[in-house]
């Protein structure tokens, strides 16, 4: 299940991360999630972002291990899940990279996926930074 994130890249209003890699994200996705918020219920955006932060590291680790072991099937599944999850939280760039890796996994062509995975790791790190910032902001409110 995914909201339909726009692919526009907006300048991050938060301070830029040290490594200067800008996460390609869509805040529209966050708006969509906020729209689903029902009164009197725990904050949905916080829950969704928290779930991403909690579960995504495991997926990235799975991807790494599977690539090392040349396990295309696991690469496909993990990339697929990470793709949907990142799209849901507005991490458009990460979702696009994951979609590419998912395709390679499905076609059993993960031999040359090292570069792609490196990009995914970098993008993932940037997304985490953005999300942590947002989480701190919402929790702080």
């Amino acid at each position, binding site marked *: *299940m*995914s*909201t*339909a994130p726009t692919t526009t890249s907006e300048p991050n209003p938060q301070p830029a991360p040290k490594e200067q890699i800008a996460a390609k994200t869509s805040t529209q996705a966050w708006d*969509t*999630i906020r729209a*689903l*918020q*029902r009164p009197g219920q725990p904050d*949905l955006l916080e*829950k*969704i972002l928290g*779930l*991403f932060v909690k*579960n995504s590291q495991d997926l990235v680790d799975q991807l790494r291990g599977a690539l090392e072991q040349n396990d295309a099937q696991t690469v496909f*599944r993990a990339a*697929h*899940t990470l793709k*949907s*999850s990142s799209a*849901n*939280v507005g991490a458009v760039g990460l979702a696009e990279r994951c979609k590419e890796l998912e395709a390679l996994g499905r076609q059993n062509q993960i031999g040359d996926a090292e570069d792609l995975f490196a990009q995914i790791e970098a993008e993932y790190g940037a997304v985490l930074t953005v999300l942590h910032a947002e989480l701190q902001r919402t929790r702080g409110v």
Partner: protein
Amino acid sequence: MTAEPHQPIPRVLVADDDPIARSLTRAGLEQAGFLVLEAEDGEGALVLYDQQRPDLVVLDVMMPGLDGFQTCEELRRRPGGDRVPVLIMTGLEDIESVSRAYEVGATDFASKSITTLLLSHRVRYLLRGSRTLDALHESRTSLNRAQRIAQLGSWEWDLDTNRLLATEQTLRILGTTAWKFGGTVESYKQTIHPDDLESWIQSIEGLLSGQSPHSLDHRVMRITGVERMVHEEAEVERTPEGHPIRVIGTVQDVSDRRQAEAQLEYLAYFDHLTGLPNRRLFLDRLSHTLLTAIRYQRLGAVIALDIDRFKRINDTLGHSVGDQLLQEVGERLVQGIRRSDMLARYRAADEGSVTIARFGGDEFYLLLNEIGSAQDAAKVTTRLLEAIAKPYTAAEREIVLTASAGITLLPLDGEDVDTLLKHCDTAMHHAKEQGRSRYHFFSETLNVAAEARLELEESLRGAVDRGELRLHYQPQISLATRKIVGAEALIRWQHPNKGLVPPGDFIPLAEDSGLIVPIGAWVISTACAQAKVWQSMGLPLVRVAVNLSGIQFTESNVVDTVRDALETSGLDPMRFEVELTETIMMRQIQKMIATVGELKRLGIRITMDDFGTGYSSLAYLKHFDFDTLKIDRSFVKDLTSDNNSSAIVEAIIAMSHILDISTLAEGVETPEQSAALQRLGCDEVRATAQAARRQSLKRCGWSTVFSSQFPELSTEHR
């Protein structure tokens, strides 16, 4: 967005291994007013489904373990799982997944990329459709339930398309299933018992033409081979112009009801102990028989049969032994009637020509619808009394019962039921008074006649042993050589008191009583022995002929008897001849052909007696290998005075010669008859004894060579 009013909140089960997607879907659906149940994978979804029975299921395709497709398939196999709407979430670009989704029974599919808002709408739409289906199912189910309780099925037959829509209960009654039932009027007809199909078609035609309502009982043949009786009613729907469009029918299984009715009828008309008709049924049939007998001037009989001193059995051995004996008596009566030859010929025409009933206690009654004479009734009764008198085994001992019977003839002894039965009882009590174990006619005249017959029968029984029977021989003379070529043996009974009894007075009695068998055997052996004596005396006498009775063929092995007589006497078989009448041939013609063939193989000659008097048929001549054909005396008598007789005799002789059968004329009394027969080509004649004596053989120009050595020809005594 809220759920539709007046409905319980719909519950949606969402299965997705991705917690983020699941949470978002849940949020979207909850916002739209649904209650959401979450499962992390396919297995979890199935468990939750079984527990909660949600109104709709959303399945993600990509899940570890059971994926969305497999989960959907599993779900569809569950009871009730065949109707819950299932929405499968697939990748947008994946056409294969879409078709797979429908294959596994998904109600709909949606791309994972649709918004939660659109998803909510989709879910709402699916639920509405499902509720309509549920309502339809519910109404069908309750109709089926109602029909099942009423054991009533219904069907609709569209006359345009010939489709026939049958409810589940209808199919159940017809013993078929929705799969096997073709759904056309033809497939409906196939369930109808073939013997009832025609009346069904006629009834439906009557309905369609508006002439008669369709209300019909007919049998159906179930696939299992079981036959059931159904009651069917139908109405027809018409256009305003009266053109029939549709037939609507109901069908009800009435087998049990019919069986109950049959059971009631059985109880009302049959005796529960013996299974025989009871008094009521007997009286019904008797009144019917009486009317028929009066109208068509037929003779029937009612016989009352009472076990002698039966009370003694019940008193000493108990009622259960008594009942057992009564059952056995009933059985013996039925068997006795079945074996009765006398009744067989009447029964062939009418299956219900004999009724055996038990009125209660030890009283049995018989109704014979049609008999030839009082003697027939007496014969049947004698047999039945004999059958009853055979020993019984009950309570580990041998028991002997006898019965007494009263016989009334209808309509002679009473033209109404009450009078007949009263007279029958009177006659039966008379039999008891006379010492039991016997029958008694109601009519005294018949009793006198029966007594005389009985006496004669007793006396005839000993006639063979006492040497009272005689054979007389009449000469058979060749017309060509004028010599005696044979002799026909004729039986006489020299009764010690009555003098000479003619065959016509005792042969029928001998046949009725079965005495004809030993008497016939005596005739055959005596004739053979006599012929052997003549042969050893050097007489050129060619042969001796004897007449056989039909009873000898049916009740004994006549072939064995003849073979024994030939062997014992040492007579050349060529010198022995048997004569058969047409009437004998007529009975059991196939068996007769075989028997005559066996006799021929013994080497003896066969003559057909009385040719031309009965059902003379050329076909017999072809089937039986006769040596001689006997021209009846009635033709010979008129031979010189009646041209027709002359023509018939001429034709018989001509035909016989073509078939290589010799002819012999009976009853030749005058030289003129003899001359005429010779002229027509007849081979032999048999002179009457009187003629032989009156005119002397010599005057006829016949051989006198051994007339002096042939004393029987002149003395008629052995």
